[in-house]
C-alpha cells in the first residue's frame, strides 16, 4: 500500500496537477497548516494561511460551503477526518484543484435543496458549542452572509433585530427565517398571523407594517 501510493505520488508529481486524487498528498497538504503539537487539528492560524493560499477571504460564503462539504463541526477549525472527508469527495489534494472547484461550490448555493442544507448546517457550525442558541451578533453576520443578497427584506429584518429585545436565536427561529424569506412576498400579504410562524416573525411583520405606516392589527388586540 505504502509503496503503491508512493509510486503514484511521484508519478503525478511528474505529470501534472490534473492527475488523480492522492490521499497521501492530501494529508501532507493538511499538515502544512497544523502545529506539531496538535497535528490532526487545523486551527485559526492555519485557516488564515489556507484561505490565503487558495485566494479566498475567510468571510467569503464559499468557505461555508467548503466547511459544509467537510461537515466541519466548529467554525475556524478543520479536523483531519473532516478535511479528508470533504476533500476526497471533491477529489482535491492541492491548492490548484481546490481553486478549480470554487466555482462549483458557489453554484451549490443556488440549488434550493442544497442551500437549505447549508443554511441549517450553518446554525450548528457557527453556534457557540457551550450554548443551545446562537447569540445575536453571530446570527446577524451569518444571516447577512447567507440571505443578505437574495432576500429583499433582509435589511429591514436586520434593523428589526437591532431594536428588538432578542439576545439569541434558537434553531426553530433560524430555520423559519429561511422559510419566511422564501415564501413570504415583499408586501407581506400572504403572511398568516395566526399561522405556525414563530412569534419573532409575527413581531417582525407587525413592526414592518408599522414602519410602512399600515400597522392596523396589533398583536395585543388579537384574541388576547
Amino acid at each position: 500500500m505504502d509503496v503503491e501510493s508512493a509510486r503514484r505520488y511521484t508519478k503525478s508529481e511528474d505529470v501534472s496537477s490534473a492527475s488523480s486524487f492522492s490521499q497521501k498528498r492530501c494529508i501532507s497538504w493538511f499538515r502544512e497548516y497544523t502545529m506539531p503539537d496538535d497535528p490532526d487539528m487545523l486551527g485559526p492560524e492555519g485557516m488564515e494561511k489556507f484561505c490565503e493560499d487558495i485566494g479566498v477571504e475567510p468571510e467569503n460564503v464559499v468557505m461555508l460551503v467548503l466547511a459544509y462539504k467537510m461537515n466541519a463541526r466548529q467554525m475556524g477549525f478543520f479536523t483531519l477526518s473532516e478535511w479528508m472527508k470533504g476533500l476526497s469527495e471533491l477529489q482535491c489534494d492541492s491548492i490548484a484543484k481546490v481553486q478549480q472547484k470554487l466555482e462549483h461550490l458557489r453554484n451549490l448555493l443556488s440549488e434550493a435543496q442544497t442551500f437549505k442544507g447549508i443554511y441549517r448546517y450553518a446554525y450548528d457550525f457557527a453556534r457557540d458549542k457551550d450554548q443551545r442558541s446562537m447569540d445575536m451578533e453571530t446570527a446577524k453576520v451569518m444571516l447577512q452572509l447567507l440571505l443578505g443578497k437574495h432576500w429583499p427584506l433582509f435589511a429591514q429584518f436586520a434593523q428589526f433585530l437591532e431594536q428588538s429585545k432578542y439576545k439569541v436565536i434558537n434553531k426553530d427561529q433560524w430555520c423559519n427565517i429561511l422559510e419566511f424569506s422564501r415564501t413570504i412576498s415583499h408586501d407581506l400579504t400572504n403572511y398568516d398571523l395566526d399561522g405556525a410562524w414563530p412569534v419573532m416573525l409575527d413581531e417582525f411583520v407587525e413592526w414592518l407594517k408599522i414602519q410602512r405606516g399600515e400597522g392596523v392589527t396589533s398583536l395585543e388586540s388579537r384574541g388576547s
Partner: protein
Amino acid sequence: MSLKPKRVDFSQTWDILQQTVKGVITLADVPRSTWNDRFTDVYSLCVAYPEPLADRLYDETKHFLDDHVSELLLGVSKQGDASLLQAYHSAWTEYSQGIDYLHQLYLYLNQQHIKKQKTTEAEIIYGASCAAAADYQEQMEIGELGLDIWKRKMITPLKESLVSLLLAGIHGDRLGKARHATTDVICGVIQSFVRVEEYKKKGQLDLYQQIFEEPFLEDSGNFYAREASELLQKSDVSYYMEQVSWRFSQEELRCQKFLHSSSAPKVRQCCQEKMVAAHLSWLHTEADVMIENERRRDLSFLYPLLRPLPSGLAPLIRKLTAHITQQGLRAIGTLQGDNVHTQFVESMLDVHTKYYELIKAVFKGDQAFISALDKACSAVVNHQPASRQPARAAELLAKYCDSLLKKSSRGTTEGDVEEKLARSITVFKYVDDKDVFQKFYARMLAKRLIHQQSQSMDAEEAMIDRLKQACGYEFTNKLHRMFTDMSVSADLNTKFSSNLREREGQGQKQLGIGFGVYVLQAGAWPLGLPPAPGPFHVPQQLEQSIQAFETFYHAQFSGRKLTWLHPLCQGELKLNYLKRPYLVTVQTYQMALLLLFEQCDTLPCKEAAMSLGVSQEQLEKHVVSLIDCKLLKKSPDGELGEETTLMLNLDYSNKRTKFRVTAALQREGPQDAETTHRSVDHDRKLYLQAAIVRIMKSRKLLRHNQLVQEVLGQSKITFAPSIGMIKKCIEALIDKQYIERTANSSDEYSYVA
C-alpha cells in the same frame, strides 16, 4: 217490502224518483214515507232483474243535476254584479245542504255500486294498476258528483267575477267599511271553494289556492305595499311600527274570519315582506338610534316585527352588544377612591341587571340577546385600559369578596352579605382570568383565616361552594384544604392542651402562657417563607411552648417538617407598668421587641436589633408602628437610626383597655399585586406547556390551528390565553425537543417520543 231482486220499469220508477230528488235538492218538504219509498226505489233499481239498472240511474241522476245547476247558474248570473255574491251564496247554501241529503237518499247506490268501482287508497298512493283506468270516466258517489258538477257548472263560469267581488269586499273590510251582513256572505263563498273539493284525497285545497288564494295574496301585497309607503311619508318610525303591528293583528283576525286556516301563515309572510322586509335597512338605521336612547316602547314594537325575518335581528344584536359595552365601560371607567372594588363590582352588576331586565321586558328574554349581553359584559369586565396592562377585574372582584367576608363595623346584615356574594358570581362568570382571581382570593382568604378576620365561617364556606359550582372542584381544591386545615388545627390545639395538662399532672413545668397554633399545609396556602435575613431569636417566654408543641406534633406525625411563620403570628401582652392594665395585641416581632423592655426602660435600636436577630431595616418597620401608637418613645426625635434610643412610654394612657397595634406588614402593597400577577403568568406557561405536551402525546401529529384550538378549549375554564402566549409555549417546547415541526409541512407539529 221484499228485498228480493225483481223486474223494474226504469222510466216509471225514475219519473217518481226524479220528483223527490228535485224536492230534496231544493230543500222542499219531503214526507218521511215518500223518503222511505224512494230510498227503496234506489235499492230496487240497483238490484233489478235481470239486469241491474244502477248505471242508468247514475247517468240519469247526473244528467238531472247538470240541468239543475245550469238552471241555478242562470238565476244567479241574472242578479248582476251588485248582488251576485249574495245570490251565489244563497244558491250554494241551499244546494250544498240538498246534495248532502241526496247523498243519503242514494245511500245504497253509493255504498254498493260505486264503492266497488272506486280505486282503493293504495292505488291512489302508488298509482293506478292499469293505464286503461285513466280513460274510464270514473263514477263518483252522489254527494261528490253533485259537488263536482257545482264546480264545473257554477264556479268555473263565475270565478272571475266572484273573486273580484270577494277581493273588493275584503278591501272594504280593511278600510273598515264592511257591513256585517256581507261578512257572512264573503266567508261562505270562500268556504264553498274549499268545500267542493273536500272529498278529494289529494290536493283538496288546489281549487281554493288557485282561484282565490293566489289573487288574494297578490292583492294584499299591493295593498300593504301602498299602505307602507303612505305611512312612511306621513309618520315617524314609532307611529309606523304601531300601525304595522296593528295591521298585523287585524290581518290575523281577518284571516280567521274569512280564510281557510292554511292561508294564515302565507298572509302573515306577505304582510311582513311588504311592510317590514321591504323597509328593513331603514328600520335597522332607526333601531340604532332606539338602542342608543334605549327607547323601550319602540323596541318592544320593533322586536316582534323583525324576529320572523332571517336576518332581521342580527344588526340589533350587534348594536345592543356595542351599546352595552359602551355603557359598561363608561360605568367602570371613572372609578376612584378607596373602595374601587366595591364600585367596580356594583356598577358592573347595575349594568348587567339593567340590561338583563331590558332584554326580558323588551325582547322577551330572547336567547340571542342574552348572549349579546354576556358578550358585552365579558368585554367590559376583561377590558384592558392600556395594552400590556392586565385587566383588573379578577383582583377587584377578589377584593370585593374580601371586603364583604371580613369583619367590619358597618351595619350590613348577614342576609345582605349573602345576597351580595351570590350576585358577585355573575361578575365572576365573566372574568377571563379566573386563575388570577383564585390567587388573589386565596391570599385574602388566608389572611382572613389566620388573623381571624372572617365575619362568618358559614359565609366563607358558602362562597367557596359557589365558586366550586361555577368552576369545578379543581378550582377550589386549595381553598377547601385551607378550610380543613383550620378545623384540623382546632382539634390539634385541644389535644395539645390536654396533653399539657397530663404533663402537668406528671409534675412537669407549666408553660405559663396561652398558646395556639395553626398547622397549615405548605402546598395549599399561598404563604411565602419569611424573608429571614438571619434567624429570628424567639423570645424565651415563647421558646418552651414552641418546643413543647414540636415534640407533641412530631410524636403525632413523624416525618413532617414544621416551619414557623413568625411574621404571620401575633401575641397578646398585658401591660402592668401603667396606671391601668392594658391588653394589647401585637405581631410577633413587636411582641419580642416589647418583651425586651421587661428588664429595662430604654434600649438603643442597634442592641434591640441584635437581640431579636433582625436587620435594622426590619426593626425600624416594626418600631414605627409602636412609636406611632405611643407605646414607645424615641430619642432623639427625627429619623430612626442605629443610634436612636427607644424608651418605654411610662405615661401611656388609652380609653380602651384592650386594643390592637396594626402591624406594618399586613397591608397589601402594589408590589404584592404585581407578584401575584407574575406568579400567575408563570403558572399559566407551565399549564399551557403541560396541556400542549398532553395533547401532542395523544395525537402524535397535529396542525397548528387545531393544536391552538384544543389548548384554548382546555384552558378556557380558568383563563383565556392569548394566541401569542400559546405560540411562545409551542416554541419553547420545540426548543426543549418535546415536539418538532414536521419536515413536509410548515404548520404541523409532531410529538417527539
